[in-house]
């Protein structure tokens, strides 16, 4: 099941490849102009086409992706300063400010909240599983 041609197929493929490149290399210093070149777009045209499909500019998408990856790392218990640099930010205050603006919580508060939650789940797993499912699986008897 592969390419039946559809309108603007080659344009879509170039844009999607550019987005997938950002997905793979988000933690590195990304040159969006170079990505535009690779996709055979001018920078202006690349931003316009990207935004028409993804509702965000490539830069906005990159930032939101980095913040989402940061959220996942914090949830896994990685320290705030490590997370900052692992996802590609170069300044801890900028990262913290952006994280709070986009999630409503500071990275350290989110990290603490997730650590507490993990401890509660470990101590009392059944408190986080609907009774119907636990009952059907016989977990309540144990």
């Amino acid at each position, binding site marked *: *099941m*592969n*390419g*039946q041609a*559809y309108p*603007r*197929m080659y344009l*879509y*493929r170039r*844009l*999607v*490849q550019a*987005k*997938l490149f950002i997905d793979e290399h988000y933690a590195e210093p990304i040159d969006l102009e170079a990505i535009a070149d690779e996709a055979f777009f001018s920078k202006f045209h690349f931003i316009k086409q990207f935004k028409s*499909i*993804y*509702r965000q500019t490539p830069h906005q998408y990159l930032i939101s992706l980095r913040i989402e990856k940061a959220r996942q790392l914090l949830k896994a218990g990685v320290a705030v300063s490590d997370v900052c640099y692992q996802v590609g930010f170069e300044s801890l205050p900028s990262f913290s400010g952006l994280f709070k603006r986009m999630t409503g919580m500071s990275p350290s508060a989110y990290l603490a909240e997730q650590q507490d939650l993990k401890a509660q*789940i470990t101590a009392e*797993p059944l408190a*986080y*599983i*609907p009774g119907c*499912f*636990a009952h*059907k*699986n*016989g*977990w309540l008897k144990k």
Partner: protein
Amino acid sequence: MTHSTVYVLDQDSAFDFYTNKLGFKVVTDVPMGNDGRWLTVAPPQMPELEMVLAPVTRSMFSKEVSETLKDLVRKGTFGVAVLTCDDIYATYEELKARGVEFTKAPTKEFYGTEAIFKDDSGNWYSLAQLK
């Protein structure tokens, strides 16, 4: 509706499919030893709707029912949901690039443009850009 269930053949593989390929977010992941996990994921723009990635366990079903259910899943019996998107061609190309198997390419229908794909267990989904 707060929860919906999809039966999967392997929770680890399903976890990879739904999060890394489909882009769903993990909501709850509670290990329960050998019986699997209480594992729920949500579509990126619907964080309140939890889809339970439910293993077919002997705790829940008899041997006969368990084998029948797994066979039905494997054969693609269950159409789980319709997922809508803003741009079907962009979503189609991206999911294909991530290794999602489509059984129907985007095709114009009276309600919009629709494609069909399978998850790693065999369950199928409609992907649609509505008019």
